[in-house]
């Protein structure tokens, strides 16, 4: 016992030994002094000696495996009886049930309690969870499909202040002004932002504004091309290179934004539009189309703050909370948020497009998700009232 405590500090050894000497009361009642039992155990099981004649057989001797109770499947379990039984060296005394035998019986009873009912309870609960998941998927899909099929009627959207400010900012641009659009999103958020881009481009072209497009994300350049192609076809007289360009992807993230601010003129020099735009000082408005807050922050920190250029932003709904401080501080002159922002813009520009037609399916999906949250909380409340939560 003491040898196993080698390496411990002196005070630690004292604590360990003190703990060993304190036998529980029910063990002391058995009659055999604790020291005697411990001494006998140490005599019978030598630390690192093998019984003569049994060398090499250690691995062959299989210890019994428990067949029931909490310890089922575990080998080498010390039997409770062997701990509490009276040593045979006191065997001359006639056998009588030892004191504490009832505690032993109770302990064995606890060990042999079956586990099966607990597992059986879990199975229906897991199955129920799976069913609820699939049911929620089906209901949501049905709501979206139903919304798409029923869409077509006009929806009267309230106009938010942020969208109205965005519209007014573009409306204030004179013919021949220059706007720089940064398409910083990817196909994942394109469903929300592409309708915004279409509505903004449409409005800019109505106003006769020259448009410089670029992207700080690799996917943005191709998405910008798609949006330009779809809108330009409605505005005859808008010519690539003269009235609008797409400079493509600019690497470098934060530095890419600064690079554009410092070197826009040389980048535009190969195009006829370059004669009109010598640098950022000739840009009247920057429109950031951001699928993540990092993209928006890049433009605000690296370009808007140092160069004091007017800036507006169209963002996916998830970026909205991060974009609002910039809008409230006046760094952003306007803010479009998600598909709803695009729909509001289409409405205020009196040019209904894809965003307005998607409002009904989106509204249906929102309401279904809200309903699930309410149902979940109702179920939780009922569980708590029944004492299971």
């Amino acid at each position, binding site marked *: 016992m003491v040898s196993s405590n080698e390496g411990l500090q002196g005070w630690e050894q004292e604590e360990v030994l003190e703990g060993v000497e304190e036998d529980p009361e029910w063990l002391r009642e058995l009659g055999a002094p604790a020291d005697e039992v411990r001494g006998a155990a140490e005599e019978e099981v030598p630390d690192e000696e093998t019984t003569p004649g049994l060398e090499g057989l250690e691995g062959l001797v299989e210890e019994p495996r428990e067949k029931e109770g909490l310890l089922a499947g575990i080998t080498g379990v010390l039997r409770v009886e062997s701990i509490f039984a009276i040593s045979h060296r006191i065997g001359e005394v006639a056998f009588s049930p030892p004191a504490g035998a009832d505690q032993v019986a109770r302990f064995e009873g606890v060990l042999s309690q079956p586990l099966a009912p607990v597992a059986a309870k879990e199975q229906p609960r897991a199955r129920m*969870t799976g069913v*609820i*998941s699939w049911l*929620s*998927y089906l*209901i*949501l*899909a049905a709501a979206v499909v139903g919304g798409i099929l029923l869409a077509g009627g006009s*929806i*009267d*959207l*309230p106009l*938010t*202040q942020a969208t109205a400010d965005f519209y007014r900012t573009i409306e204030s641009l004179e013919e021949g002004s220059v706007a720089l659009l940064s398409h910083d999103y990817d*196909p*994942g*958020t*394109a*469903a929300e932002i592409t309708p915004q881009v279409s509505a903004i481009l449409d409005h800019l072209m109505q106003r006769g504004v020259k448009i410089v497009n670029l992207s700080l994300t690799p*996917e943005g350049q*191709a998405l910008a*091309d798609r949006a330009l192609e779809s809108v330009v076809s409605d505005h005859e007289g808008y010519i690539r290179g003269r009235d609008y360009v797409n400079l*493509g*992807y*600019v*690497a*470098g*993230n934060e*530095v*890419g934004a*600064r*690079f554009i601010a*410092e*070197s826009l003129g040389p980048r535009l020099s190969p195009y006829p539009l370059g004669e009109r735009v010598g640098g950022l000082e000739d840009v009247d408005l920057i429109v950031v189309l951001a699928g993540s807050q990092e993209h928006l922050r890049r433009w605000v920190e690296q370009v808007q703050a*140092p160069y004091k250029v007017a800036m507006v932003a169209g963002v996916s*709904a998830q970026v*909205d*909370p*991060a974009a*609002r*401080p910039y809008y*409230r501080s006046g760094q952003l002159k306007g803010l479009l948020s998600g598909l*709803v922002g695009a729909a509001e813009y289409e409405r205020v520009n009196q040019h209904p497009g894809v965003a307005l037609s998607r*409002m*009904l399916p*989106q*509204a249906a*999906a*929102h*309401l*279904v*998700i*809200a309903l*699930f*949250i*309410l149902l*979940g*909380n109702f*179920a*939780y409340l009922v569980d708590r009232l029944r004492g299971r939560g």
Partner: protein
Amino acid sequence: MKRVLPAAIAMAAGFLVLVDFFFDNLYLNALGVTLINWVVIIAAFALILGFLNILTFHLRKIFQRQEGWPYSIALLVVAGTVLFGGLTSAQGYRAPLVRTVFDYVQTPLQASLFSLLAFYIASAGYRAFRARNFETFLLVVACLVVLVGQAPLARYLWEQLPALKDWVLEVPSTAGARGIVIGVALGSLATGVRVLVGFDRPYSE
């Protein structure tokens, strides 16, 4: 020398760009712009290095028949196709082959992956989003107000709901977001100063 030289170069470049930010001087501005141009060029080359890294990683995976190696073949075939289409056409990323892969592979895949979120949110909304205490109760209420208030039909449920949604977004949400933005800015400032004075050396790790 191995430690001092990179640190000296990084500190000098950092200070130059920082000083250029605050002062309007022709020479400083020219130096700053040159450094920024270099970074953009280096970032573009880093993309090539990234592609080579992916190439070696997945080739090794295929040759060693590691788990999921057929997916590596798919990845390399598509990457090779896009690269070939872009390099062999004067139109670059507008080449028909690149455009086809982008329009019919990348765009639908990314959009589908993002769309799945709606289904997971619906399921999670029922199973996990519960008002277990006062804080989570507030969270659930705010979520419901914004979620339903965002829908165009919200005002038919309650006329003041869109206004309440705007208030949640404009006041408590913006206050929290502003705190995060200021915290991030202070953290960036501290990190920048540590790099500039040489306490942190991310470039030599």
